[in-house]
């Protein structure tokens, strides 16, 4: 009967209960969003790096991939050395550069990657063919900027010298396909060519050089061990495993996590105080009834249970509503934040992880239990005769 009494007590002031549930729901939604924010970027960054099975990035010593314009020389020998390391199953060389698509009144500038199409992990082909010696695949943004489409020929130049107004390399290439670039945003103008083409167009400075190697390891191999072996074999490079990259990103994003933690904790406290206040007000209104219940033999435990159940009821209803509200809010905020220029499409700021979300909501419900304890204790500790006397006078 204590469940029935708790439910009826909450229904007694339906509008107040509804407002309290909405308040807890907002608090729960914020808590959920903060949990999703705290884990979202890390998880989606790890997921992004782990795509296509590449577990190690190798860049010039002391740099992060594409952090600088530094390159790795004697790339062919370096690739062979890496391939020889136990557990390495594939090595994908990448050379980044800036290309200028000539022909229009103003050249269109784009980011280009020289890759080995057989092992690359930088783009997904949406239409057409992978690049050959005189073809490229382009992002939709580049095709839109140049007005080109698959099958068209572009006049592409590399290595612009602003003083001499010349290029180190220039060639006419056919657009062989459309592609989505994994690590770039949808708005980025980008193209992928064969590695040899980019190296050739870059002149002597780019001969046999790459910006990085992406390395795939066998599933049963510890990438960290392979990473150490690569650095040992090639002292002029820095190798970064996905786990290391995630840890580095996490370090750089610690501000977000601290912010999320603080706001999440504030949400939890607000929810706790809200439930405590509502249940305390409700108990204060029912002091006489509670004293009578105790007088006719209803146990302290019954009173405590009933009031704690009311707190749990408010928290559960608020948490359930907050789950829905939080997911929708997160989607909306995510769509805003993903509009930041230069962010890879695959990056999500808010990621719904059922375990984390339900842990956070369980915490909120636990705080609802705690919130009911004070008013429950107060109600159960009422001196029966004194309360009845005061009620009779009142």
């Amino acid at each position, binding site marked *: 009967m204590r469940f029935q009494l708790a439910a*009826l007590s909450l229904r007694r002031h339906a509008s107040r209960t509804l407002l309290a549930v909405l308040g807890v729901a907002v608090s729960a939604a914020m808590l959920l969003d903060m949990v999703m924010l705290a884990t979202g970027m890390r998880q989606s960054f790890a997921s992004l790096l782990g795509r296509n099975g590449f577990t190690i990035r190798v860049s010039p010593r002391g740099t992060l991939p594409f952090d600088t314009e530094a390159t790795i020389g004697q790339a062919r020998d370096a690739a062979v050395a890496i391939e020889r390391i136990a557990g390495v199953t594939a090595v994908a060389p990448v050379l980044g550069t800036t290309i200028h698509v000539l022909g229009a009144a103003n050249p269109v500038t784009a980011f280009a990657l020289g890759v080995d199409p057989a092992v690359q992990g930088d783009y997904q082909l949406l239409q057409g063919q992978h690049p050959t010696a005189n073809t490229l695949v382009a992002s939709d943004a580049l095709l839109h900027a140049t007005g080109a489409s698959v099958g068209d020929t572009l006049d592409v130049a590399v290595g612009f010298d602003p003083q001499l107004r010349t290029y180190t390399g220039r060639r006419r290439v056919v657009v062989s396909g459309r592609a989505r670039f994994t690590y770039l945003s949808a708005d980025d103008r980008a193209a992928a060519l064969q590695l040899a083409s980019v190296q050739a167009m870059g002149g002597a400075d780019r001969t046999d050089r790459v910006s990085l190697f992406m390395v795939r390891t066998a599933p049963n191999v510890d990438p960290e061990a392979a990473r150490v072996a690569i650095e040992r074999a090639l002292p002029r490079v820095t190798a970064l495993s996905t786990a290391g990259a995630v840890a580095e990103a996490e370090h750089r994003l610690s501000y977000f996590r601290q912010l999320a933690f603080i706001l999440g904790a504030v949400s939890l406290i607000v929810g706790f105080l809200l439930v405590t206040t509502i249940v305390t007000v409700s108990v204060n209104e029912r002091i006489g009834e509670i004293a009578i219940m105790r007088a*006719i*033999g209803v146990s302290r435990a019954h009173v405590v249970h009933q009031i704690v159940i009311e707190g749990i009821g408010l928290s559960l209803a608020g948490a359930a509503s907050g789950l829905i509200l939080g997911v929708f809010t997160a989607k909306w905020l995510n769509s805003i934040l993903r509009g930041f220029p230069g962010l890879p499409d695959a990056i999500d700021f808010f990621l719904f992880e059922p375990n984390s979300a339900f842990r956070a909501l369980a915490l909120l419900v636990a705080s609802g239990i705690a919130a009911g304890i004070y008013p429950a204790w107060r109600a159960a500790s009422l001196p029966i005769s004194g309360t009845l006397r005061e009620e009779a006078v009142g």
Partner: protein
Amino acid sequence: MSGQPLLVVRDAHRDYPRSGEPVHAVRGVSLDVAQGEYVAIVGPSGCGKSTLLNLLGAIDRPTSGSVSIGGSAVSTLPDKAATRFRLTHIGFVFQRFYLLPVLTAQENVELPMAEAKVPLAERRDRARELLGYVGLEARADHRPAELSGGEQQRVAIARALANRPIVLLADEPTGELDARTGSDVIALFDRLNRDGMTIIVVTHDEKLAGAARRVIHMLDGRVIRDEPLLRRA
């Protein structure tokens, strides 16, 4: 008295601390109440009637002295045992009815039985029977707000009888009722007593006190007169 004492009070005192100086609400009251008696406790406001009733009902404990009911020393029972004792041995009726407004009349009567873990079907039957006894079977599904004061008090009496108590304690049961509905309650108490229920009422109502078989007069926390009335035909 009509038998062995069911309820025994010996030199009961109840003091309340107030601003450092204790208020002596009950001062050395001793009395015996036999099974089947119908006792009215009367006296001016503040004379200690309700405090004495609370001591008799194990709601409160005497500062000194003892109270025993049915052989149990209720004044020394720990809270949990006293609560259980009230549930199973004592029926309470209060001036303001104090029915739970969220429950129907039937559910209010079922509440003490549910607390005593009486099976659902049994407590439904018993609640119906009691509501029939107080003439409210047709109002079983009504909430207190839909009942008149007299009807609410009759539901409260049915609730007090739910667990077949050995004594019914009533504190100003007609205090909030008009003359006609007050008479209904007095008649109901009379019927209950004729059916064997021991009843102790605290009242200012002369009609109610006149219906009792024994009247205890109190003044300043003491019993000043204890008189049996002539049994009516």
